[in-house]
């Protein structure tokens, strides 16, 4: 973490049958952190624990120096007493209240008079560009509007920690782009700590400055978007950022994969190492190619899919690889599933880094 003083300092341990969640999280005031991971990784469980909707089995949650949950000390602050705001995945706007009263709900519970709460809510809706929708019931709001009302509702109680659960998942693709930009602006205006839970790497990278990637209940990698996309450390992240990723044992510029295949790289390393390269760096040939220093191997085509303007060819063989070729090249090579083919990657196109 870059920040020395963290608003949120948590060690979240939850046991759910055979599933164990154990992650450390620290978020500074004004910082936006994304908790990124596949479905079932434990993201939502972590969010519920932070909000007080599920008690910890171990660890601790401290927010602005106050302990909110510490099973060891038999301490648990219930959700209504925590300075935590939550934007739920499907927003959970109260269907019987207008947009204005949904936003005024929190301030009202925190002791504001009805007039004060409504004035505050009105100001928040104005800031979200929803002033003229204040009287609408949630079912008469579009997805993007409901998302903004939910954000206003969560922010209206001045939470020290703002939690967002898949904030853009319920929106269609078109609305997503606009809402993401707006959300980015609002989140960075929030003085407290912000934690976004998402399985969408694009949302995470666009909205957060620090990413925490979890799989099966543990943190597998964290850092800023650039370092994570450049040097993925698990297949999940490699798939998210669209890279082929291998782990093996490095001896100089040669990395030996578990199957015995040697990949030549340009970065000399010793010991366990990752090698990553882009699918577009893979070239396919009918005959064994020769020439500049390359990694070449014989592979079998296991699948062909459209990928943007190109075709993505799935290859089996000494290593499972994705290769991107143009439709013209694919036609020229007569690519078909089951076909044997030669694949090549230049050493300069690979990236090697210690595991």
């Amino acid at each position, binding site marked *: 973490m870059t920040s020395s003083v963290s608003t949120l300092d948590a060690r979240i341990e939850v046991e759910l049958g055979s599933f164990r969640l154990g992650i450390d999280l620290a978020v500074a005031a004004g910082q936006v952190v994304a908790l990124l991971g596949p479905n079932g990784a434990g993201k939502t469980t972590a969010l519920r624990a932070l*909000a*007080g*909707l599920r008690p910890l089995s171990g660890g601790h949650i401290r927010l602005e120096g106050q302990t909110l949950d510490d099973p060891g000390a038999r301490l648990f602050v*219930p*959700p*209504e*007493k*925590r300075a*935590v*705001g*939550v934007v*739920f995945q499907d927003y*959970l706007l*109260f*269907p*019987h209240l207008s947009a204005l009263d949904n936003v005024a*709900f*929190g301030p009202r*519970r*925190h002791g504001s008079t009805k007039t004060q709460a409504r004035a505050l809510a009105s100001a928040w809706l104005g800031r979200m560009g929803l002033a003229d929708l204040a009287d609408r019931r949630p079912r008469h709001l579009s997805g993007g509007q409901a998302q903004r009302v939910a954000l206003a*509702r*969560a922010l209206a*109680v001045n939470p020290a920690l703002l939690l967002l659960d898949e904030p853009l998942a319920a929106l269609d693709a078109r609305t997503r782009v606009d809402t993401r930009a707006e959300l980015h602006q609002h989140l960075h205006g929030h003085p407290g700590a912000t934690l976004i839970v998402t399985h969408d790497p694009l949302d995470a990278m666009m909205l957060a400055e620090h990413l925490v990637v979890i799989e099966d209940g543990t943190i597998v990698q964290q850092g800023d978007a650039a370092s994570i996309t450049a040097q993925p450390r698990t297949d999940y992240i490699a798939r998210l950022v669209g890279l082929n990723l291998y782990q093996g044992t490095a001896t100089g510029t040669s990395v030996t994969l578990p199957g015995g295949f040697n990949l030549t790289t340009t970065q000399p390393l010793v010991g366990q190492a990752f090698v990553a390269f882009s699918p577009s760096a893979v070239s396919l040939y009918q005959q064994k190619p020769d020439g500049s220093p390359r990694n070449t191997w014989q592979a079998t085509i296991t699948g062909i899919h459209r990928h943007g303007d190109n075709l993505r060819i799935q290859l089996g063989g000494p290593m499972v690889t994705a290769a991107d070729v143009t439709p013209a090249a694919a036609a020229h090579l007569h690519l078909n599933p089951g076909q044997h083919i030669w694949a090549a990657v230049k050493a300069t196109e690979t990236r090697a880094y210690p595991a």
Partner: protein
Amino acid sequence: MAADRHGRARIPLALLIPAIAGMAFLVLPLAGLLIRTPWATLPRRLAEPGVLAALGLSLQTATIATLLCMLFGVPLAWLLARTNFPGRRLVRALVTVPLVLPPVVGGVALLLVFGRRGLIGSWLDDTFGITLPFTTAGVVLAEAFVAMPFLVIAVEGALRGADSRYEEAAATLGATRWSTFTRVTLPLVAPGIGAGAVLCWARALGEFGATITFAGNFPGRTQTMPLAVYLALETDLQAAIVLSLVLLTVSVAILAALRDKWITP
């Protein structure tokens, strides 16, 4: 199998005939009531003081009983639906006993507890001088006893059907459990409470067995419509028909009012 022009299989006679017989069995007695109604003398008979007194008492006691049931039944339903205390399933089973209990037995049980020599009745009598049996309050008590399970079950069902995550959202906004209940839960399940209250009211309005056992049959004090019907049957068939018609009208009106909102499957 034979099929009609729309491609649907023909209804088997083995199902159709009993179905029609069943329908006739339910509808014919009501038709008989309408056919035998002395329409010419109806307005005069309706205006008789005895009829009006019984109707007024019925509406009054059924309404008070329903309010009592809501006051105690909604929290009970909430407890059953939203908390998990030891013995919850047993409590739930006990609460529904009056549904299947013959109302006369309910009346006897009420007498044993709230009668002048009953467990609570003797204490009420000694301490406050309050007597429940054979009073209008006794009618309310008998009706509430029999009708409350209808409300509890309807409201519990509504609570279980309502998304409890709204309550979690309210908690994260600083709402205590009580204000969550009043500000979020109650509005969300209001239709269910309404449906339960109407069912409860209709059951209270028709209550006979427990009422006559616990509260007796005193005109103007404990004689509700069903009791008046029963008494009139012994002396004046026409009067009994008129009273029955009034109850039928009220019941059908409730059903009609409910149909769109809550009863449609």
